[in-house]
Every structure is written in structure tokens, then in C-alpha cells.
């Protein structure tokens, strides 16, 4: 395991910006908590139990709190470093723009790019998991909670098209609060665009594993998240179409404990496997091997 890599991506802080600042939380889907990171990088406070944890310990535990077992969100490069070897990024140059000239959106994008050091809300490329080559994408909670606008949809579509051409399986780490509303109808169209690319990849007889992480809701949940051959859900992840607050407002009652959590989703028949973070790589490798390795009886 490359703890150093994972740690680096967990705590990568471009310039003078911190994760979880006010600005970052200002307009995303409100259900999900934002990690509270202590800037000295030596220790941090668990966003769930509030205990102070050494950052090294947290990183070695893949962002799972050793005291209470809470899953901290993983930045996409940390996620990829945890699961794959020899990652080579693709489509890094792709960036979105203010297609509708939506007020304030240019500034918002510029601030997010500055803050995260990333151009957009998904990282794509190729790598190996358990020795099996695959195409990968991982979505970024720091970028308006992984919301899908043109750039995110374009990169994911290109990843599927690339995988179809190169006959590679796709492993996607899904995280999204839904659509990028500042891109209006263009954002909605990404659901159709990505779905069509998933379909073509599937028609070529290729494997797609979606790993649904916290949160997977809205337009992304209603497109490529639920179009995979195998749907893994990370333990405890919130997965659903509408966010819990929207549902509570609609039906005017409190939702039961555990509603829309990975375990609930599996019980209702919509997720194949619940995975703990520490076993994710191994589970992915095993499934990839069953689909992609030569059979030697």
C-alpha cells in the first residue's frame, strides 16, 4: 500500500485554501458533512465523534476514523491511489465553462479550481487493479459535491468511449449530489450523454463496476451510477434519487433511521455488494479477475 500517496492526496492543500471552508459548503447538497481538517496536517478532528486523530493514523486507515469508524470522504486521487496501481490520468485538460452565462458561476469555478488544484469534479484515467488493466473515474466532493456539468459528463463519457475502443473494463467511483444547476439543460443532457456511452461500452461485452460512495443522489444516481453490471456501495453511503431533506419536505414526516443508506439500498435489491473501504481494492480485483483474466483450467 502506498500510504504516502494516499496521505498526500488526502491532505493536498493548494495554496492558501482549506477544505471545508464556508465558500465550499455554500451551495451544495446540504446532507453531507464536510471534513474538518486541521491545517497543520499532523492531527485532525473526526467530523463525527470529534476526537482528535493523528493524520498519519487516519490516512493509514483510509480516512476511516479509528475511534468511531466514521467514513471521511476521499478525494478522488486518494481513492484511486488506494485501489489502483500505475494510474495514468486522461482528459486532464478538459474543463467546463459558463455555458449559460449564469451569474456568479465563473467566479465560483475559479475559486474551486484555486482551492482544489483540480480543473473539475472528476478524475479519469487508466490503471491496474490486482494486475487487471482498467479505465477509472473518481468524482470529487470538493467540486460542488461532485455535481455533473459539461466537463464532468464529458470526461466520464470519454472514459467509457476510450474503454470501449481499448476493450477495457471501467471502474467508477461515484460521488455526486446531482446536477450542476448553473449549467441548466446542458447539465441535464449529461445524464443522457453518459448513459449512451455506458450502453455502447456494455454492448461491446465489457464490464462496468460502479462503486457508489457517499453521497450518490440526483441526476448522477439516475444515470451512470445505476447502469453498471455490478453495483458496489461503500458502507454507510447515502444513495437515492431525492435527498432526504427534499423527501421530508414533500411527505412532511421524518425519515426512518438508515433510510437510503447503502445497507437499506442493498436490502431493497438495488446494490450487489456492500464494501468496507479497507477491502475495496481486494473486492474490485477479485471481480475484475473473474471477468478479464484468461481462464486456465
Amino acid at each position: 500500500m502506498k500510504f504516502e500517496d494516499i496521505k498526500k492526496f488526502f491532505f493536498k492543500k493548494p495554496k492558501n485554501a482549506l477544505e471545508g471552508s464556508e465558500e465550499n459548503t455554500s451551495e451544495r447538497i446540504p446532507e453531507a458533512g464536510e471534513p474538518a481538517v486541521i491545517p497543520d496536517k499532523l492531527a485532525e478532528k473526526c467530523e463525527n465523534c470529534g476526537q482528535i486523530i493523528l493524520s498519519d493514523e487516519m490516512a493509514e486507515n483510509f480516512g476511516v476514523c479509528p475511534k468511531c469508524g466514521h467514513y471521511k470522504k476521499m478525494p478522488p486521487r486518494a481513492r484511486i491511489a488506494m485501489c489502483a496501481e500505475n494510474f495514468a490520468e486522461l482528459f486532464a485538460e478538459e474543463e467546463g465553462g459558463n455555458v449559460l452565462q449564469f451569474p456568479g458561476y465563473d467566479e465560483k469555478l475559479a475559486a474551486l479550481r484555486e482551492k482544489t488544484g483540480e480543473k473539475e469534479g472528476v478524475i479519469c484515467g487508466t490503471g491496474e487493479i490486482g494486475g487487471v488493466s482498467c479505465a477509472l473515474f473518481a468524482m470529487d466532493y470538493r467540486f460542488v459535491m461532485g455535481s455533473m456539468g459539461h466537463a464532468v459528463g464529458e470526461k466520464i463519457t470519454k472514459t467509457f468511449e476510450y474503454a470501449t475502443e481499448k476493450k477495457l473494463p471501467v471502474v467508477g467511483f461515484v460521488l455526486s449530489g446531482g446536477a450542476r444547476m448553473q449549467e441548466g439543460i446542458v447539465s441535464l443532457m449529461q445524464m443522457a450523454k453518459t448513459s449512451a456511452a455506458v450502453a455502447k461500452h456494455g454492448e461491446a461485452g465489457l464490464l462496468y463496476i460502479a462503486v457508489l460512495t457517499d453521497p450518490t443522489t440526483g441526476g448522477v444516481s439516475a444515470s451512470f451510477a445505476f447502469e453498471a453490471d455490478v453495483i458496489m456501495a461503500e458502507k454507510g453511503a447515502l444513495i437515492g434519487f431525492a435527498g432526504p431533506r427534499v423527501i421530508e419536505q414533500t411527505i412532511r414526516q421524518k425519515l426512518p433511521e438508515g433510510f437510503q443508506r447503502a445497507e437499506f439500498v442493498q436490502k431493497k435489491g438495488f446494490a450487489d455488494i456492500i464494501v468496507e473501504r479497507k477491502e475495496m481494492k481486494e473486492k474490485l480485483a477479485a471481480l475484475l479477475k473473474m471477468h478479464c483474466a484468461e481462464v486456465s483450467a
Partner: protein
Amino acid sequence: MNAYEIVLKSREKGRPTALKYIGKIVDGFIELHGDRRFADDRAVIGGIGYIGGRPVTVIGIEKGSDTNGKIEHNFGCAHPEGYRKAVRLMKQAEKFHRPVLCFVDTSGAYCGIGAEERGQSEAIASSIIEMIRLKTPTLSIIIGEGGSGGALGLSAADEVWITETSTYSVISPEGCASILWKDSAKVAEASECLKLTAEDLLRLGAVEKVVKENGFNDEFYERLGRDIAAFFAEKSEVPAESLVEARYARFRKF
């Protein structure tokens, strides 16, 4: 009319709903019920009838016209079963080489406990991916509100048309104003910013045709019926594989 006035118009009481269009445009309509899995979702109406002498599978999101109708059809907010019924009828249409026509009019897919338990996300995702690869001609017409994923589930078509005071948007202007500006009073501003009017959508390439409404008089339905018949006559000459490739390109451009 400004964008907000169009938003209000698209939801106006007395506006023709999918059943009205079916009654006016489709001959000998036979409704087919149920998703064969769980229930018959009345928010989605489906069946077979003739348009221009050609059998067509017709699917519509129905809001209901009077109080009882609105309750029966759940105000046009479909549950997963509605999308699963639509997919069943689309696959049936493909088998019998019938074109598929969808009338879209919904504020969005239903948000509720049952809808989540029965996989609303999966139902819409399946509807999009099945429709976008369907080997038969498809046309969707937005006749009121085209609300987000719930509308897209029935709009992954060869062409999307819209009547002139209808809207198609990723989020309601109310939702946009409250999330982005924490101010539901900014609905008019959000309506403008979202570029959800027929004119904007045509410019952005999200729709191919804006249908003049003319107060929804008889001439409107006659003209629309003729245009639909002509569209299917033309598309029925195209090999299925070419249709599917053209549809891929249609959505790939965004």
C-alpha cells in the same frame, strides 16, 4: 412573455394534458397497463394507436385535469413503476417495429419513501439507457413542464419538440433560487438564468422544434398530428442502427 411568465403558463390550470393530446391526435388508442413487476402507475399512460394510419406506441406523463384526475395521476409525478411501464412498452414497440411517441409533462419524478424503496434512480436510469439505444424511431414532445430527470427518462429520443409555452429544466426555478440564493423570492430571476424556455432550448440544441400553440385550437392538434406522422414516415425509412447512431450523436454534442 418573460421566462417566469412562461413557467407559470406551463403549469396553468386548464392547459391540455397528455390524455387530451392522445384523444386529439391518436386514433383508436388502446391503453396498456402496468409494469408487470409491481403496479400500474397512473402518472404514466401508455398504449398503442394510429397516427397518420401508422400504429404507434404512445406514452404520456399525465398530470390530470380536475381534482380527481390529479389525485388519480399523482399530479404527473411518476413512481418507478411508471418508468418501468414505459420501458416495457418501448421494448414492445421495438419488437413490432413501431415508432414511440412520448408526451412529457411533469414537475419531476415523485419524491417519497416508496419511490426510493423501489429504486427511483434505477428506474429512471434504465429508462434513459433503454430509450437512447432503442432500435425504432422515437419522438418526445414536451407539452407543459419538462422537469429534470423525471422528464429526461422519457426524452432520450431521436428528436425532442416543445410547445411554445412549455419549459424543460434541470431544476425548478423555485428549487434553484432556494438552493443557490437561499431566497425563494428570486424565482423570476432563476427562471431567466436557467434558460428553460422553448426559444432558449432551441438555441442550445436541446430541442429540434418549437410547436406554435395557437391557443390549443383544433388546427393546432391537426397540424401537430400531421407533423408527427411525417416525422415517423421519414424515420421509418432509416435503418435502426443508423437511428441509434444518430441519437448517440444528438446527445454526444452536449
